[in-house]
């Protein structure tokens, strides 16, 4: 009984934290609420980190929940990323939500609800549970996007995201219905068992269902035919929320996508890798156009996040073509993108604390003179996002392209490299703006604070992840990270 409870403890802590925050939201100040939220998240984070690599694959309360709730290294690694993402989002933005008057106590509860949904999503071994978990995560994010409700842009972003998001969310449940119609169960293992027995005619329904589910996942990822919301929503949302969406919510979708394609539809992957290839090409090209044409940094990062989805889709489409590296490569890329994007958005929101204007490229002219440390970190994140060697972004792209070439998708890998070069343009433009133009403002003092320190640590990790080996114990470098990713994927495949 208590062992079983211990297995679900991390999620329970997060959701209990959300309840506690709701209860406290009227009495505590924002600072204290922030700390309470971070406390609950870190508790969950610590438990997960202790558990990683030590537990075997098991189900929680199998006699009550059936096989709906699975615990393996794969889901624990994702849990770690979700909680870490939320903690970073909350800590880096401590100053930000004090500078805006539209924040209130429910903000933290919604973040915790969203994290809870993502964690359940990573652990769910059953499609209906996955759908509900996905909706918990998305509904909280919808509300967070519209948090600045007296701002037209924010409200518009929320409406756009909510209407499109709920409509595409319906596809998930429709796909589940089709799969249930064919298989007679929504449990992933039952589906895998059904799919692995070849009976061509009956697989059509499963395929259609799978495609519907993919539509939902691709929409929330922002892949190109479904990308129309990305830039507006990222721009309309308050900075911390944008950071949360780009770094944490995006990862959650790969949790379910990877689980589906590695367990569920493993033998069908070959069928839709063609569809995925087309979507990948569109995403890479369309995302690049989106990113190039933007003037505001926030919009540029939003556009480029589409491109990063494209890179991950390259590896995702290679899973079906027999590359062992593909799935670990996605995991690694997720970690690398998480670090770099969270850092970049973190700096933006850090700067936005003091000023309320739109941040365009122009605003960054001479930034290195005003805030030399911050601009150095920004440069590091930009280098990592563009995939410059000696940063974690380079290794991520390296693994992705290796896996694509391994599985024979030379053209896709080539296109990926071309878009990586294109991305150099819009990322380096920012670096150029910061370093090669004189400052228009007077030099100010740069106060030391916790958010800055945290961003600095992230910048260090970006570098360390790119060059480091396991020299320093407990902090995994490049080798360590890919080993962790492989271990997680292995735990997933051991089920069968």
């Amino acid at each position, binding site marked *: 009984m208590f062992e079983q409870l211990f297995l679900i403890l991390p999620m329970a802590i997060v*959701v209990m934290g959300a309840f506690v925050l709701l209860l406290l939201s009227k009495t505590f100040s924002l600072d204290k609420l922030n700390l309470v939220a971070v406390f609950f998240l870190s508790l969950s984070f610590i438990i997960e980190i202790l558990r990683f690599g030590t537990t075997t694959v098991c189900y929680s309360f199998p006699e009550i929940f059936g096989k709906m709730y699975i615990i393996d290294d794969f889901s624990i690694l994702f849990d770690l990323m979700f909680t870490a993402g939320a903690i970073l989002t909350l800590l880096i933005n401590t100053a930000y939500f004090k500078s805006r*008057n539209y924040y209130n106590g429910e903000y933290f509860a919604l973040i915790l609800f969203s994290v809870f949904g993502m964690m359940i999503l990573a652990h769910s071994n059953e499609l209906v549970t996955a759908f509900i*978990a996905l909706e918990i995560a998305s*509904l909280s994010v919808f*509300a967070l996007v519209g948090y600045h409700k007296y701002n037209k842009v924010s409200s518009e972003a929320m409406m756009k995201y909510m209407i499109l998001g709920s409509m595409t969310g319906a596809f998930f449940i429709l796909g589940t219905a*089709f799969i249930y119609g064919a298989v007679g169960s929504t449990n992933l293992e039952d589906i895998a068992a059904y799919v692995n027995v070849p009976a061509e005619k009956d697989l059509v329904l499963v395929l*259609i269902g799978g495609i519907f589910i993919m539509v939902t996942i691709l929409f929330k990822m922002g892949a190109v035919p479904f990308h129309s919301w990305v830039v507006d929503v990222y721009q309309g949302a308050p900075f911390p929320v944008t950071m949360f969406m780009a770094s944490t919510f995006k990862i959650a979708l790969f949790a379910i996508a990877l689980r589906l394609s590695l367990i569920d539809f493993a033998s069908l992957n070959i069928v839709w890798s063609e569809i995925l290839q087309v979507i990948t090409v569109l995403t890479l090209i369309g995302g690049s156009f989106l990113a190039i044409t933007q003037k505001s940094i926030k919009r540029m990062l939003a556009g480029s996040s589409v491109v990063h989805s494209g890179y991950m889709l390259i590896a995702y489409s290679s899973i079906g073509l027999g590359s062992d590296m593909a799935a670990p490569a996605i995991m690694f890329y997720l970690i690398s993108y998480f670090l770099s994007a969270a850092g970049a958005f973190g700096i933006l929101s850090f700067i936005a604390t003091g000023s309320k204007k739109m941040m365009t490229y122009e605003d960054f002219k001479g930034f290195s003179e005003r805030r030399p440390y911050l601009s150095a970190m920004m440069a590091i994140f930009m280098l990592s996002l563009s995939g410059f060697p000696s940063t974690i972004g380079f290794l991520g792209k390296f693994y992705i392209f290796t896996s694509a070439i391994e599985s024979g998708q030379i053209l896709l890998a080539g296109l990926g490299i071309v878009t990586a070069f294109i991305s150099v343009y819009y990322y380096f433009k920012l670096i150029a703006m910061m370093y090669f133009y004189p400052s228009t403002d007077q030099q100010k003092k740069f106060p030391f604070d916790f958010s800055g320190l945290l961003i600095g640590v992230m910048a260090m990790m970006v570098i360390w992840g790119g060059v480091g080996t396991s020299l320093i114990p407990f902090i995994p470098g490049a080798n360590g990270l890919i080993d962790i990713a492989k271990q997680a994927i292995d735990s997933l495949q051991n089920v069968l």
Partner: protein
Amino acid sequence: MLENSIFVLLALFLLLGSAGMVGFKQTLFSAISFMMAMLALAGMFALLDNSFLFLAQIMVSVGAVVVLSLLVIVSVNVKEENLPKEPAKFRWMLFAVVLVAPLAIVIYKALTYMPHTWAKTGEGYGSLKMMGMTLFKDWVLPFEIVSVLLLAAMVGAIVIARKEPSNDA
């Protein structure tokens, strides 16, 4: 035979209601078409001998969801001339239909390939006891986390809808 004709009739109402929901310009008519579709869906449940789902569908979808949407329509009270102009609406809908048609054909084909053996419904199918057992035994995890979903949605909705003084409005 009677079942089949009732099914066809209900399906017709379901389709008409859904089409009306999308097609009407006035929100009031859309809501009523939606109600019609929901009633037809409830009829489908009745046809499947599941009396609980039939009434739950009527009470929840018809009795609550549509009434709430009507409440929203009343509170917003949109005049017809203030609705957005959609000159090529039906052309777009036709386009969408053409776009989806191949998918529909594939689904139809796939369904005809399905084996024509019907699953036997067990003893007491459609009874309250069966529904309760299904919900609280086989599907207890999704059933319980739905409560978190509703709570999160409610908190989000209240946060968005609540009026509070704001300085940089």
